[in-house]
């Protein structure tokens, strides 16, 4: 590991890689700060720029956008009571209360500092835990991969929103989309319907750009808001006030506990920053000597929520890099980006492309440092971001999406696919069909099918192969638990409500 780290450090200090990280973080913060535009959109927007880049620089650009996007969500949560991303919902009450008290600068500084600390601690978890998991995973065969993919697909239960049936429909559609084209195992064509462009299958990048970015542009065009800050007026951030670091020292036990919560939640596929921030917030409220202050302008509340949601960023990369399992939509896009660069995520990545893996891991630390510097300089400009008129912002996003889709394989067909998925995502989300299950299923589709077929051929069609191998059995048990836990929880809640 040490040799890899030394060789990576020399390569990572190049100007273009640093510039990529700076750009990624800046775009992430700006997009994340705009309500309705999430870190996922920031990453999807940056994706086309990585096509012509070296894999390491490209992935770091996306990780910059990811970390910046998660942090950026806190800015509007604090300034205008509108969380930029779901992960910042827990920050709203305390942040806005402080803004009303004229302490916006304090709230923004605590959010920035704790976000960076949370990010750095999750980077440490990534550095030390990921290689260990990769070492174990190297011995996996088709049954283990199928069980793993099945476990990965159970994430769908937790990202399905209100209706599991709708989540499963979307997952089914996602998996079905991956079967279009030439079957990689037998070389036979599937669902071509005489359209030659379908021979190469449905491109994941245009689909992602369509579902997440173009659909969001359509949503914004439909509601037609002038600008985010329109209803809130001009908000001033008084940067002349200094924030004493001893106040941060007081918050450190809270920050460490919340980081651990964020790391554990982030490493669990299907969870994410929103759950982590609420858990950490509630935890700190319970432990606090002054729980009544929470929700009324508590810096401890902001610290807990912001540390935890940023601590998930590095942790979500653990299952992605070691097992090839996306924990959420952002990591699903990052997986797609790795595939575009000819890399197959999973345990072999650590042996075959160790320099790249350590570039990503160490770059993650640098990204967090850059986020601190950019955040520190930009605090006074944050309130201005929300004043950019939507009518200027939307064409920028749309044109970047269209050119991005085109550049994925220099084809107009890809733009058509992106437009189709944009409309598809826009219409179905109106009827509360969740899009995340489809994307996760598209990422895991080929692995699921190939490993299932290979395993069944190995066992002459007997499914017992999946329970005869211990690792595969463990993943299947985890998959069953992951599927059944939401039902058990819902049934307990129902019983509790009936008792009341």
């Amino acid at each position: 590991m040490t040799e890899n780290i030394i060789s990576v450090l020399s390569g990572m200090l190049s100007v273009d890689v640093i510039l990529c990280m700076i750009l990624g973080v800046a775009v992430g913060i700006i997009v994340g700060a705009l309500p309705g535009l999430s870190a996922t959109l920031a990453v999807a927007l940056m994706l086309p720029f990585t096509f012509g880049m070296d894999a390491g620089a490209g992935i770091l650009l996306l990780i910059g956008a990811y970390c910046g996007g998660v942090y950026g969500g806190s800015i509007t949560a604090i300034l205008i009571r509108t969380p930029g991303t779901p992960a910042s919902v827990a920050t709203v009450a305390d942040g806005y209360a402080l803004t009303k008290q004229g302490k916006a600068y304090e709230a923004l500084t605590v959010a920035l500092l704790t976000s960076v600390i949370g990010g750095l601690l999750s980077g440490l978890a990534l550095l030390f835990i990921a290689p260990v998991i990769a070492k174990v995973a190297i011995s996996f065969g088709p049954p283990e991969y199928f069980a793993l993919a099945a476990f990965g697909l159970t994430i769908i239960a937790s990202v399905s929103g209100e209706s599991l049936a709708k989540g499963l429909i979307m997952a089914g559609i996602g998996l079905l989309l991956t079967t279009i084209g030439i079957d990689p195992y037998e070389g036979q064509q599937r669902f071509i319907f005489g359209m030659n462009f379908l021979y190469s299958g449905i491109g994941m990048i245009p689909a992602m750009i369509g579902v997440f970015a173009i659909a969001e542009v359509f949503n914004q065009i439909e509601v037609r808001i002038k600008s985010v800050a329109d209803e809130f007026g001009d908000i001033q951030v008084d940067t002349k006030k200094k924030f004493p670091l001893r106040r941060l020292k007081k918050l450190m036990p809270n920050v460490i506990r919340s980081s651990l919560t964020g790391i554990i939640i982030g490493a669990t596929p299907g969870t994410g920053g929103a759950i982590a921030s609420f858990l950490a917030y509630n935890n700190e409220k319970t432990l606090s000597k002054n729980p009544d202050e929470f929700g009324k302008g508590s810096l401890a509340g902001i610290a807990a929520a912001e540390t935890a949601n940023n601590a998930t960023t590095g942790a979500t990369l653990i299952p992605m890099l070691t097992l090839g399992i996306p924990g959420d939509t952002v990591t699903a896009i990052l997986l797609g980006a790795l595939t575009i660069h000819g890399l197959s995520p999973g345990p072999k990545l650590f042996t075959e492309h160790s320099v790249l893996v350590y570039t990503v891991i160490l770059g993650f630390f640098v990204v967090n440092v850059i986020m601190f510097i950019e955040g520190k300089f930009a605090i006074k400009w944050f309130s201005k971001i929300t004043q950019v008129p939507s009518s200027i912002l939307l064409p920028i996003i749309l044109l970047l999406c269209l050119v991005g889709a085109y550049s994925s394989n220099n084809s107009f067909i890809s733009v058509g696919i992106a437009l189709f998925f944009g409309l598809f995502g826009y219409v179905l989300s109106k009827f509360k069909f969740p899009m995340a299950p489809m994307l996760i299923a598209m990422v895991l589709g080929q692995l699921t099918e190939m490993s299932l077929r290979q395993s069944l051929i190995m066992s002459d069609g007997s499914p017992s192969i999946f329970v005869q191998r211990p690792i595969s059995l463990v993943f299947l048990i985890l998959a069953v638990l992951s599927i059944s836990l939401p039902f058990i929880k819902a049934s307990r809640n129902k019983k509790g409500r009936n008792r009341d």
Partner: protein
Amino acid sequence: MSKKYIRIFPSFIIVCLDLFLMFSIPSQVKIYQEGIVNTRFMPYLLTILILICGLTDIVKGLFLIRREPEQAAEEETAGIKKSGYLRVAAAAAGVALWLILLPKLGFMLASVLLTAGIMLLAGNKSWIQIVLVSLILTIAVYCVFKLALNLKLPQGLFFF
């Protein structure tokens, strides 16, 4: 169709398309060898899964409509505004038109027109802003993708 049935409409369409795909598997998915685990295995499995979930959602929706007809209709149509939908349809048509015109007009001209159209749809009424933003944005995107990232953008009539 009655407003209250809008809730089950997407699932109904999905089930219909799914049935079409399921019945087209024998003609659209070629197999190399007979047996359970062949090229048709996943398509059949997935179309059955979608069918079951789609029917479940339809039945659930019908129960909801019977129990609380007004609420179901209100829930599903909340936030639906005709003018908003028309703007989205116009934006989608604009993108489709951009796609058709791109090879003929070239990236620059087609993109300036698209950007201006989207700005109008998003509610911008300042012609100075529309002209300036369309030009600057298109030139910036052209420079980044064509000159910096070396992407081949369509040239069209005017060679840019």
